């Protein structure tokens, strides 16, 4: 008995056939699940240079071996090759969808090919059916979920679906996993759309059974007590992520006016107090999570009165709020919900809209492309127009739908100077000019500009490393900190952990839970080694796709334009600084100067002779 279900579901939409792939021992031992499975299987299945929007790309939904159990706050991830970045992409989602994959009897679902007509997949306790989606094609994500529930006659089925943006192959379209839970980043929704796949719907009655139930219960109780004792976790329960608005604003990390600035005079309009005042009713949690960082309610006053809104979490509150100069949280909630409904990643949408407004100011976008509308910061109407135009690919929206990197190429002029992205992924809401460790984390994140692969800000803003205070603006230790965090997080992303719970649950406890679940010895050091293996496996994928040291870089706004004001006025991360950081980081990783893992390192991680473990059936 083990918490593994023992197989992967493989569906080829071109032939309409599905089959099961047994889990190889080498796969579970070396890659565990989640990001680990995704990293190895994408490398095994995808020939180099595959067009992300071709039928040959694979779209995978990967839970981990603890997902679906009582182990607190476990999730799933979508893994594919990104149409936005061309890199390996892993995009994480909460809610209840990943759990249902396991209850259907699988440790992951692999989808390849493309359906001839709009379709959805219905997996009912192991029975796989491909059904027509003619009736739901074009619907927003909320209506899609509702119509599918009606059609199947069950309110409890679990749905992952795309909105109109995914159907139209917008490069930053998301996959919605029901009600403010998304595989948001890197354009996984466009991959789904390219397969003519509107939704994946699940219902399962199988149970997940740990190898050692007593030890498992003990480890789970330990995790629960660690979460209840932790102050950071209490903060998530009380205020959710919008509490970070005040922190980021004080520390000059808050993107404002397309990252021109690091603080926003209207920040108090977006924070937890503002959200509580205007619409929060209650706490809501993902499956098996005692933290409940989500806050759902109804907008009490104004033109959106009565609209149900989930918490506007930090990233979208910033990217669609301060980054666009909008300080009214009710308007931001409306815009974010519109992104969710249309199936757009709100973070990238905010980045793209900020870029578009600046391009308009510079004359590269003209009123001809906007139906006469003037694009300006602080204007909900401009943001509303852009979101709609992008999702439908109308007018200027067609160019912007490719993301800031590609849009800048098309618009020409100096547009690339203020296209804020790394490897094509619009940057998250952490302007890094006064935190070079964070800058390095963005430059080296495997899927492009991402804050979730390492978040050294907490060390740089008053933290310690090896018992010494960290010099915020300095470069010392930053390479080591970033590599350490990336390895640790990649390790627990095989489970698949929640980013927030990881602040409370200790690494030994994750290891003890995994050990009891699967009956293999695990400890904290082994999980870090696992993380390093997974990180290097992903690096091998990206290198094979042609990425080099030159791609581990930062947007010009961060390297050449100093922060204009405040206590960190003048701060930036120059290209020289970045180069030094990369040297340190590559050395720490055992990579050569071009960012390639050495043969010695690959041997140490058991990757040099790792055979193909998963093949197309």
């Amino acid at each position, binding site marked *: 008995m083990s918490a593994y279900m023992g197989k992967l579901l493989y569906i080829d939409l071109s032939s309409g056939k599905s089959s099961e792939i047994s889990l190889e021992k080498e796969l579970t031992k070396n890659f565990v699940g989640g990001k680990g499975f995704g990293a190895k299987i994408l490398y095994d299945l995808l020939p180099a240079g595959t067009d992300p929007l071709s039928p040959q790309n694979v779209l995978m939904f990967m839970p981990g071996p603890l997902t679906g159990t009582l182990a607190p706050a476990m999730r799933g991830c979508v893994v594919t090759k990104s149409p936005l970045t061309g890199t390996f992409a892993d995009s994480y989602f909460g809610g209840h969808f990943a759990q249902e994959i396991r209850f259907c009897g699988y440790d992951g679902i692999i989808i390849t090919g493309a359906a001839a007509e709009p379709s959805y997949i219905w997996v009912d306790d192991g029975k796989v059916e491909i059904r027509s989606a003619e009736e739901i094609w074009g619907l927003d994500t909320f209506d899609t979920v509702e119509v599918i529930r009606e059609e199947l006659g069950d309110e409890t089925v679990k749905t992952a679906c795309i909105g109109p943006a995914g159907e139209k192959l917008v490069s930053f379209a998301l996959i919605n996993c029901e009600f*403010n839970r998304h595989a948001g980043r890197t354009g996984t929704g466009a991959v789904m759309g390219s397969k003519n796949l509107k939704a994946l719907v699940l219902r399962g*009655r199988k*149970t997940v059974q740990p190898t050692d139930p007593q030890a498992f219960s003990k480890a789970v109780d330990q995790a629960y007590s660690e979460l209840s004792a932790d102050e950071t976790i209490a903060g998530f329960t009380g205020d959710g992520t919008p509490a970070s608005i005040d922190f980021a604003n004080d520390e000059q990390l808050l993107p404002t006016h397309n990252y021109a600035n690091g603080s926003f005079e209207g920040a108090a309009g977006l924070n937890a107090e503002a959200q509580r005042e205007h619409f929060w009713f*209650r706490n809501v949690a993902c*499956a098996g*999570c*005692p933290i*409940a960082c989500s806050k*759902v309610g109804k907008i009490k006053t104004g033109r959106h009165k009565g609209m149900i809104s989930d918490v506007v979490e930090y990233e979208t509150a910033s990217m669609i709020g301060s980054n666009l100069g909008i300080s009214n949280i009710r308007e931001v909630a409306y815009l974010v919900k519109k992104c969710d409904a249309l199936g757009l990643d709100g973070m990238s949408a905010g980045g793209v809209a900020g870029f578009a407004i600046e391009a308009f100011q510079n004359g590269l976008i003209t009123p001809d492309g906007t139906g006469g509308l003037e694009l300006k910061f602080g204007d909900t109407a401009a943001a509303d127009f852009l979101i709609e135009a992008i999702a439908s690919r109308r007018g200027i929206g067609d160019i912007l739908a490719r993301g800031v990197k590609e849009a800048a190429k098309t618009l020409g002029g100096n547009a690339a100077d203020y296209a804020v992205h790394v490897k094509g992924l619009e940057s998250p809401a952490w302007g890094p000019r006064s935190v070079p460790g964070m800058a390095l984390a963005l430059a080296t994140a495997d899927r492009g500009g991402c804050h979730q692969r390492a978040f050294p800000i907490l060390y740089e803003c008053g933290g310690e490393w090896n018992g010494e205070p960290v010099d915020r603006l300095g470069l010392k230790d930053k390479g080591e900190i970033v590599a350490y965090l990336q390895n640790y997080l990649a390790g627990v992303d095989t489970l698949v952990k929640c980013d927030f719970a990881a602040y409370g649950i200790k690494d030994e406890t994750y290891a003890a839970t995994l050990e009891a679940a699967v009956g293999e010895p695990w400890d904290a050091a082994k999980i870090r080694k696992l993380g390093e293996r997974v990180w290097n496996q992903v690096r091998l994928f990206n290198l094979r796709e042609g990425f080099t040291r030159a791609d581990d870089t930062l947007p010009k706004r961060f390297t050449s334009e100093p922060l204009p004001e405040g206590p960190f006025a003048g701060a930036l991360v120059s290209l020289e600084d970045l180069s030094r950081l990369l040297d340190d980081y590559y050395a720490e990783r055992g990579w050569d100067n071009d960012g390639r893992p050495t043969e010695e390192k690959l041997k140490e991680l058991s990757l040099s002779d790792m055979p193909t473990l998963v093949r197309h059936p």
Partner: protein
Amino acid sequence: MYYLRGEFDLCTGCGACMLACSNRAAGGYNPRLARLKIFSENENLVNRPVVCTQCENPFCLNACPFEAISRNEETGVVLIDKQTCTGCGNCIAACPDEMIQFDSGKKADKCDMCEGDPLCVKYCVPRALQLVVKQPKQEVKAG
């Protein structure tokens, strides 16, 4: 005598109650096999726990043709005797809250209050599930 009560205003919908319950009831984790449910409405604005309240006048007990269901007079818990249960399904059809389902052995299965220390309450961090002391009817006074 105690019974379970669930509050929609506090339930976060995490379902830890159902996971813990299913593991005891079915020997593994799956909320669909738990002896309680949560219904989520309006984009999760409302998460409504539905639990067996060990009814004063249990329809399941009334519907059973084989006297397989009885009440423990000391605790007030309504219990199914699996030896006597024939799996006819009358009780399942009778409970309007759908608090009874078949177990893997095709016997009717319901909440037994974990012998007085319910796991669902233990894992309900938001305290949406609570044990409530049952007041005898004659002691409940108006005003």
